[in-house]
């Protein structure tokens, strides 16, 4: 089975799809992390928000596409409210305060999901347009998963253009590199951070609603994705788009192929990689900040 190229190709696609999901989540987290040294453990909860809200919208309107467009916006609004009420107050506090505050948010979200949507896993069906299988190399593969890969790549492209080719992107890069200097040059770092934070929430919501048809929607899904996302952020290097995509591909492929090739060790592999990175190259593979 392991020598069958078709099988390996399918695994490759699975890995790519998981990587893209990780990318959507980690890019927002990484840039808020790099921009303001802000640690948001509740980022996974926003992902789950996207999935749950997407489920409800899909049920009410009967259209997955409505959910796909509206759920990320709703999550973005939730993120903005959280920012205004809580996060702004601990922005410059130490990592311990931030970790605990956002850990508290995880707890609150967890029970909020249970109260509103119940304990059971909810299924969301893929849109009819994409709910078919296609044949590649003698294997059947769900079209929706390919759509997810394309979505990740498209988001990467848009973010790359926005960061590298626009004025705002230049401001973000300057602020990540040296926030004080950027604000001396007239960049409103505070407002920029808010915008980046909201974009991160939007992408987390997008990841949630996009993942809903593949994984089911259940309380605790946020904790499951949070750890791999954090690993990606640290391995990739804070605040860099390149780091987020490379880290996502690394962890996505490692987990997928690890499970196929060495199932006993698969779970530990990414932690070993994270430990090794922190010891050998604590700033990550592609840190955005110059040293």
């Amino acid at each position, binding site marked *: 089975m392991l020598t069958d190229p078709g099988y390996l190709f399918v695994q490759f696609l699975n890995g790519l799809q998981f990587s893209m999901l990780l990318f959507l989540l980690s890019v927002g987290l990484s840039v808020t992390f790099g921009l303001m040294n802000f640690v948001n453990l509740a980022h996974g909860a926003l992902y789950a928000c996207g999935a749950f809200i997407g489920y409800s919208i899909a049920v009410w309107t009967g259209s997955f596409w409505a959910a796909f467009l509206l759920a990320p916006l709703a999550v973005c609004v939730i993120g903005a409210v959280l920012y205004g009420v809580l996060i702004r107050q601990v922005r410059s506090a130490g*990592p*311990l305060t931030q970790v605990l*505050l956002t850990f*508290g948010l995880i*707890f609150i979200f967890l029970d909020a999901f249970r109260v509103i949507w119940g304990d059971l896993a909810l299924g969301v069906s893929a849109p009819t347009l994409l709910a078919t299988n296609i044949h590649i190399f003698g294997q059947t593969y769900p079209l929706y998963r390919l759509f997810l890969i394309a979505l990740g790549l498209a988001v990467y492209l848009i973010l790359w253009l926005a960061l590298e080719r626009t004025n705002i992107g230049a401001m973000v890069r300057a602020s990540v590199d040296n926030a004080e200097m950027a604000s001396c040059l007239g960049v409103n770092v505070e407002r920029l951070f808010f915008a980046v934070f909201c974009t991160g929430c939007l992408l987390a919501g997008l990841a949630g609603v996009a993942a809903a048809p593949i994984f089911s929607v259940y309380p605790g899904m946020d904790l499951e994705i949070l750890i791999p996302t*954090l690993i990606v952020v640290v391995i990739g290097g804070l605040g860099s788009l390149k780091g987020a995509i490379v880290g996502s591909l690394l962890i996505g492929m490692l987990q997928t192929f690890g499970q196929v090739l060495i199932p006993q060790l698969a779970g530990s592999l990414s932690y070993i990689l994270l*430990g090794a990175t*922190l010891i050998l190259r604590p700033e990550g593979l592609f840190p955005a900040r110059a040293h």
Partner: protein
Amino acid sequence: MYYPSKLRSAVAALLFVAGIVAAFQAGYFGKEILVEIALYALLALSLDFLAGFGGMVSLGHAAFYGIGGYAYVIMTMEAGVPPLAAMALALVPCFAAGWLLGIVTSKVRGIFYIMATLAFGQMIYVFTFQNRMLGGSDGVAGVPRIDLTAIGIDMNDPSIFACAVVVATGLVYLVFSRILTSSFGRTLVGLHRNENRMRALGLSVRWYKAMASGLAGTAAGFAGTIAAQHTMFVSPGMMDWTTSGEVLIMVILGGLETLIGPVVGAAFVVLLKHEISEFTNHWHFFIGVFLIVAILAGGRGLYGSLEAGVARLTRRKSEREQEPGKTTAQKNPEAGNA
């Protein structure tokens, strides 16, 4: 800097007496809760030693809890070591793991230390979870308790067991209190305050961090050996990172860098959990709200606020006692720590 102030000693003594009384007076369920509080108190106070005094905020503390529990299980059930010796021997891998973690992470700081310890904890967790030899996700049941019938103590009596756990917790508290007032403890706090200065003084920063991490790991592992005997069962669930997070919450809700505060925090969180469970199973929500409120209120925690309040009162009192003209010279240096 740590001082075993009167207030701290009084609260510690009060909690100890309350624990002993509860061990004999409470019902069966009450005793279970008491043991749970004591176990979390051990975890929380050792984490406070590491995070509050040593400045190493770990999100992998529960891993040592698991290592201790599993080491005890392997020694008693696989290797046939007598339980009492196994309890002592199980601390060796805990210290070693903590020491190694300390060595490896000695240059990692802030959020990266949190991530590194999280990775360490999850690595141990996932390894155990997937390892068939260790019972995998099912864990191991039928763990024996230590046998002290030779000196007339029956550990299978819930009251005796609860009492023994409270006494053990008290002893560990005294040990850490002693360590913190020793030159090692002073050095550790110095490291937290200004690492470069300590290095300039010629100290081996790495060695101190490794020792602190090893000691905290040993205490958490000790709690693990007790936990294994308490439920007579170990499972990977005891070392999930959310357990580490919960312990960190207890430290903060009680009062960081006070040593006794985390014990108060452990009692508060465990009792709250059980009280809330009486009418709803959504205790996470309330703990989350408490945590956020505590942080926004300044992050001193329950005991920390009490201590700050008492310090303010004594300062006001001493100011009132002084003559209006004399107030310049005498400041009360102990007030903040009293």
